[in-house]
């Protein structure tokens, strides 16, 4: 039941993404890049802030599991991720764990920079957007290192 509701909510939130892609597809000057074709992935450590810029902690994504690391470096709860396969960039429904229980997160999706959410070309500017409601998000930045 939760999965159904979460899927529906995520579908609503992502509807503007799909609409933007369709609109942009009619405009050849707008670069629309297929996230899957580019080999995008959510795996890694993402540092997250709330809307006011307060540091909330880090989400570590590996395959279909995640760990939450608190700001004091202690581990929060673990959770599972259900892959949402109908979007180009990696998207997941969050059925359990700290992000769901503490922040009310229902889904997460990899996006480009705020000013160009569908532009995935610069890996260093990718965001992990945590979806709380259709209008409320947490923004996470990938922790940089040699491999990114």
């Amino acid at each position, binding site marked *: 039941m939760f999965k159904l509701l979460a899927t529906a909510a995520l579908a609503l939130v992502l509807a503007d993404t799909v609409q933007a892609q369709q609109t942009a597809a009619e405009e050849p000057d707008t670069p629309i890049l297929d996230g899957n074709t580019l*080999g995008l*992935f959510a*795996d*890694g*450590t993402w*540092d997250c802030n709330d809307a006011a810029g307060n*540091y909330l*902690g*880090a989400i*570590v*994504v*590996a*395959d*279909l*599991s*995640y*760990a939450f*690391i*608190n*700001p004091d*470096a*202690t*581990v929060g709860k*673990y959770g599972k991720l259900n892959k949402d396969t109908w979007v180009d960039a990696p998207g997941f429904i969050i059925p359990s764990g700290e992000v769901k229980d503490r922040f009310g997160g229902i889904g997460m999706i990899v996006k480009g920079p705020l000013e160009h959410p569908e532009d995935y070309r610069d*890996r260093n500017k990718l965001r992990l957007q945590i979806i709380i409601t259709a209008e409320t998000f947490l923004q996470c930045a990938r*922790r*940089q*290192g*040699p*491999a*990114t």
Partner: protein
Amino acid sequence: MFKLLATAAVALVLSSAAKAEDELDSNIPGVTADGTWDCNDTSGTYLGAIVIADRSYAFVDADGTVGSYGKLNQVSYGAAPSFVVLGGALQEKLGVVAMHVQGPPGHEMDFSDWSKLVLYVAVTDTNKFQCVQRRGSAT
């Protein structure tokens, strides 16, 4: 059968850590392997990054693409996180059997400084490479 062999291997690999356990109580809450670890081989060549979350890992190649995924079985040798590696690029490409978290070289049982923890990745008892945790806001 593989699990049995791997468990035996990890017991050998971790035996030195177990012997040193009396030096310092390593049962410090919050020591975790979760996160992104950047790995070099013994000659210092960058191999890629291991991303661990719970009992799953992803291996990110040196060029930033995802290698493959694998599962981890946690074992209870010592108080710090230790795992037998089941599947994925670490096992299939690099021949890894196990990994465990230690303190910095020379102070292997000192887990007090998070930023200095080392992930030891064992191919055999004598063939190991080291990974350091990618630092950021949470460390």
